[in-house]
């Protein structure tokens, strides 16, 4: 066979175009469904970032092993948010520039979610996040979906548990004077009134206090029989807990999530034994939580926390929504997420409301000699 000029040209043309034809065929048929994730790979929360990406990857691997969604495998693309607001805006804009990404995971830090919210609105694709500022789902931004219970629930749960389960009616409320602590203290105080409990002491403190003696003495003098607290930083919590015990105050204590976090347990040690805390992720709270805990431990050899449970749930819910929608169209995915009801996640049972809040309750856990033990789950309808 001789190679004619025509044959050569045809062959060349076929050779040059083939990759494109095959490529576009793959994009329409096989290929992957891409999900973008902003996570703190560097900066102060880098440690937490490892847990977050670990949780998300675990969910992606499980879905892909089970055959993926819509006949495609999921591909997770992670960008570093540097634990800062400018960092997450940059990370999100990088991800948003990729038109193949159908959904995103934002941050566990409310302030970062606030920072990226305008860009999310402009892009018009669903973003899952873990920040707990109640306002985030009231911004009128239809593309934000929350995978942790917001702070309005924690105050109600602390109040309800203390009054109904521990049967204590005279409260000392101690909170940081920052945005988180003030909002939390207010939510707790407001929840106590309708339950017939009184606030004997409503005490704010400034972050990074070196000494809590005046606070402890005020609690002692108030005659309160229970303490509810919102601490922002673990070192403040640790110093306070020690001084509280040293000065002989042993009333029951129900705290915001920081009271059961690993760092706080390490710093305060025995001073926190016997205390209660609200926790969005508690391993023994449900079958789904237990399964997640086991899978995470098998994969990474450490116990998971809420940093890893919400991204895990977010990927799973997003995948379920895409499957139910039968499409990667943003509007269809959004509608499918909002119809998710009774989905058993690691954090709890997801029932999305019209604002995009997936969870409506908290777990109460107890510190038993340093071990965090699940006590009960308190759920609200509204």
């Amino acid at each position, binding site marked *: 066979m001789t190679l004619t000029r025509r044959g050569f040209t045809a062959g060349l043309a076929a050779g040059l175009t083939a990759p494109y034809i095959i490529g576009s065929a793959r994009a329409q048929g096989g290929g992957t469904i891409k999900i973008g994730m902003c996570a703190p790979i560097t900066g102060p929360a880098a*440690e937490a970032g490892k847990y977050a990406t670990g949780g998300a990857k675990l969910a992606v691997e499980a879905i892909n092993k089970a055959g993926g969604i819509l006949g495609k495998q999921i591909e997770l693309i992670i960008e570093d948010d540097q634990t800062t607001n400018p960092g997450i805006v940059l990370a999100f804009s990088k991800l948003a520039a990729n038109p193949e990404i159908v959904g995103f995971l934002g941050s566990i830090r409310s302030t970062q979610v606030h920072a990226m919210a305008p860009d999310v609105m402009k892009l018009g694709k669903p973003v899952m996040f873990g920040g707990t500022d109640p306002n985030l789902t009231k911004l009128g931004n239809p593309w934000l979906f929350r995978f942790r219970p917001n702070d309005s629930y924690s105050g109600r749960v602390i109040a309800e548990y203390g009054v109904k389960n521990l049967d204590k009616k005279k409260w000392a409320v101690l909170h940081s004077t920052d945005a988180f602590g003030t909002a939390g203290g207010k939510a707790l105080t407001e929840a106590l009134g309708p339950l017939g409990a009184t606030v004997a002491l409503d005490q*704010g*403190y400034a972050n990074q*206090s070196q000494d809590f003696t*005046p606070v402890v*003495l005020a609690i002692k003098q108030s005659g309160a029989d229970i303490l509810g607290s919102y601490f922002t930083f673990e070192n403040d919590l640790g110093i306070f807990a020690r001084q509280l015990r*040293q000065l002989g105050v042993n009333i029951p204590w129900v705290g915001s999530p920081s009271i059961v976090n690993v760092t706080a347990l390490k710093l305060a040690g025995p001073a926190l034994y016997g205390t209660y805390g609200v926790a969005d992720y508690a391993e023994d709270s449900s079958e789904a939580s237990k399964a997640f805990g086991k899978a995470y431990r098998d994969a990474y050899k450490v116990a998971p926390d809420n940093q890893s449970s919400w991204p895990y749930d977010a990927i799973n819910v997003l995948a379920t929504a895409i499957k139910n929608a039968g499409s990667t169209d943003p509007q269809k995915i959004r509608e499918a997420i909002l119809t998710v009801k009774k989905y058993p996640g690691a954090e709890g049972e997801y029932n999305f409301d019209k604002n995009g809040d997936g969870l409506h309750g908290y777990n109460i856990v107890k510190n038993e000699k340093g071990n965090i033990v699940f006590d009960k789950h308190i759920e609200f309808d509204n």
Partner: protein
Amino acid sequence: MDLVLQLLFTGIGIGAVYALVALGFVLIFRATNVVNFAQGEFSMVAAYLMVVCAVDLELPYWLSFIIALAGMAVIGAIFNLGVYYPLRHRTYLPVIIATIGASILMANGVLALYGPQPQVLPGWFETPGIQLGPVYLDSQYLLIIVVTIALVIFNYWFFEHTMIGKKLQATSQDKEMASLLGISVSTMIMVTFIYSAVLGGLAGLLVAPILFVSIQMGSTIALKAFAATIIGGFGDVTGAIIGGLALGIIETFGAAYISVPYKDGFAFLVLVLFLVFRPQGIFGERVAEKA
């Protein structure tokens, strides 16, 4: 009354911590005429050195203590050579900016090496404290108070009764005159930096079992210690001690009887009052002479 005694003890304890850090400020100020804004970071770095030795490497507590302080002596020397010495012929401003830069470097260096999680450092004593009548005395605070008293005595002896102390004083009063008398000014300044770094480190090691070891532990204490030095009279050793103790007591009582959230406010309110009505501080004639 019980309440007052308890508050007084805590106030003196926390005040002694401010006093220790303030002492480092004063010594460097006297020797070089600049404020060392990295003084708080000396405390933080020493505490991390101690965590590495006593907790991570499980060395005996006393040995870790010595290693940490020796480490601070080295850091003090490096600090002098790297931050102060190259700028010593310039005005005070570039030096102050350089100390701020060094403090940022130290804080972020430790952050990069050790991560952001606060660490626990056990105290010197097995017993956390003793109950003396109605007052609970935290053993670590007791230690801090004792060390502060010992240091006041030591400083008096060192500066008034040893040759090197007198040379240091001469250098701080008039560098040209001192060098004409055959005192090596740069050696004396080196000694001052080493001593200040060790003092700052000592404060950090003593306070770490109470406040935990964290990146920001130094800066929060240093800010109060700085206020204490101004109240006491910048450049005066006794003033730094009295200023520190006064500040600790004022803020503790202010928090208990007026407002907890404004606790830090009382410290700085007192600072402002002093700056307006007695800018030279309680003991500070020397400032006017130096300004």
